[in-house]
């Protein structure tokens, strides 16, 4: 069984500061980590490896320093790491990112399962996983909290819903995005860390993937960021007191004033 886990390197804190003038993230002094949700995807891949003898490859698209995230995954027990890295990919939105990752996955070759975290802790879009499955034209199951059964050509999983869960059987290959309820990620091992230090990371640029320049990076990104702003803090609000009919009338009056 071949498993591909897609990971993203993100800033460690969930409270990153934003430069009010440029409206961009202040990245200086913030440590980079593997997106926490992706850690569950890595762990699930490793559990497959232990139970069924799978080969697990991690893949990430990002700047050269994202290599550290791939090495960390290797220190946990992943077999190989592939970094998709090129200035030409800069500015990719979720569409261009999933298009590029799809091309890289095709280049890796045969796979049975792709695992992703449900979303990245920085962008919070939850679109890249589903985007990859769409580009690859394979089934996707999002928010997976448990893998119930794996057969030769199919897999049955539990998918977390707002209330309760769904049981879904999907043909393989498929793409799953996982939630934190699925497992508890392991720590690296010392032997893994030693191996990760000298492991060869495959790096693919636009040259190796040879993609249509119109489909990648900023050019290939239909999303346009018009404005980024910090929402103003909520103010105290107003409490109306008195008998219900009276207060209801006041409320209607106030709402009328609010809505032009």
């Amino acid at each position, binding site marked *: 069984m071949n498993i591909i886990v897609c990971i993203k390197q993100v800033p460690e804190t969930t409270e990153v500061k934003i430069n009010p003038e440029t409206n961009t993230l202040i990245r200086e002094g913030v440590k980079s980590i593997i997106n926490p949700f992706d850690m569950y995807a890595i762990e699930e891949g490793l559990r497959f490896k232990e139970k069924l003898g799978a080969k697990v490859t991690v893949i990430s698209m990002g700047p050269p320093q994202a290599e550290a995230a791939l090495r960390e995954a290797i220190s946990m027990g992943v077999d190989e790491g592939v970094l998709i890295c090129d200035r030409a990919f800069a500015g990719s939105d979720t569409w261009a990112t999933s298009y590029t990752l799809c091309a890289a996955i095709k280049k890796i070759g045969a796979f049975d399962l792709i695992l992703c975290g449900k979303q990245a802790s920085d962008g919070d879009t939850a679109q890249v996983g589903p985007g990859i499955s769409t580009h690859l034209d394979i089934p996707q199951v999002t928010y997976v909290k448990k893998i119930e059964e794996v057969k030769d050509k199919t897999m049955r999983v539990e998918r977390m819903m707002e209330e309760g869960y769904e049981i879904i059987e999907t043909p393989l290959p498929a793409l799953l995005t996982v939630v934190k309820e699925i497992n508890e990620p392991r*720590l*690296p*091992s*010392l*032997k893994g860390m*030693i191996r990760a230090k000298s492991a060869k990371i495959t790096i693919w640029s636009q040259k190796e993937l040879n993609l249509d320049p119109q489909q990648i990076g900023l050019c290939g990104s239909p999303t346009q960021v018009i404005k980024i702003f910090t929402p103003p803090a909520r103010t105290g609000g107003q409490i109306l007191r008195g008998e219900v009919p009276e207060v209801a009338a006041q409320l209607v009056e106030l709402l009328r004033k609010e809505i032009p």
Partner: protein
Amino acid sequence: MDYLLTDEQKMIQELARKIAKEKIGPVAAKYDQSEEFPWEIIKVIADADLFGLFIPAEYGGLGVGVLNLCIATEELSRACGGIAVCYAASALGTFPIVLFGNEEQKKKYLPDLAKGKKLAAFGITEPEAGSDASAIKTTAKKQGDYYILNGLKHFITNGGDAEIYVVIAMTDKSKGARGASAFILEKGMPGFTFGKKEEKLGIRASSTRELIFTDCKVPKENLLVKEGMGFIATMKTFDMSRPGVASQAVGIAQGALDVAVKYAKERHQFGKPISSFQGIQWMLADMATQIEAARALVYSCAREIDAGVKDVGKDSAMAKLYASDVAMKVTTDAIQILGGYGYMKDYPAEKYMRDAKITQIYEGTNQIQRNIIALRLIKEMAK
């Protein structure tokens, strides 16, 4: 201070620190209260390969390195001295096999110990033989292919939870210390049972029990080296393991200092954080300096051992003596800085002090350490 650690040592430090912070810290108070054996953490330490640090590569470990062991023990102790000692005590029980085991014994026992599948323990102390180890009464009589052990060991760390035990027993009482021998015992051997679990002041996550031998049959292949080598094996083992206890003390002290500094910055009195008062600053400065001096001594001693320097007895005694006295002083001062909160169980300071106390007592009381140092000094003077 930069101790110019190798890349591998830095990895060990990083990994042990991660385990301490993410896995041990959150449960340290729970195990301290319940006195349960922390198997879930032992598994984490095992999966991280840390049990292999003191076992040669050909038996599934990562090579014998006392400094490596010290680095790991220190970081684990920073979060909980009790959980860390379950780890360090297994090293203590493993060292005699690494140092004195024959090929068959090493092949049989070390791979499982390196993987952390099994824990080890070391048994020498008896109710009437503590500091005076030559007074042990447990006997081992050879009968055919077996030695028959009778007697009692007490205060044995990991006792009952470990699978592999190295036990010292008298094969020839008439020879005194030279009549002691070391045996490898396995849990479940006929006639080998355990006494009640002791309730302790500190290191409460670790287990301490009596080992009871009633006509316990031990195969003769389980004798280490040969009859009469028990004390030499013990002394050599302690020379290797004392830096481990010392690093446990350094870790406990560092953990207490971490708590004290954090608290001093957060606690406001007279309109200011108490860390702005010189009285507090000087205490913190002294604590940090003493810890660094202890760490430097421990690491130097561990490096000596790793380099194969002979006769490290005095240095390892100094490291254990100094680091444990520092741990007691620093943890007491940490409580003082936390004031009334420091005395309460809701805050972690008092646990550090309770955990620190044992480091002045076990693996040779600090009085015995001073004896070792003084005897050596006098001997050197006589040369």
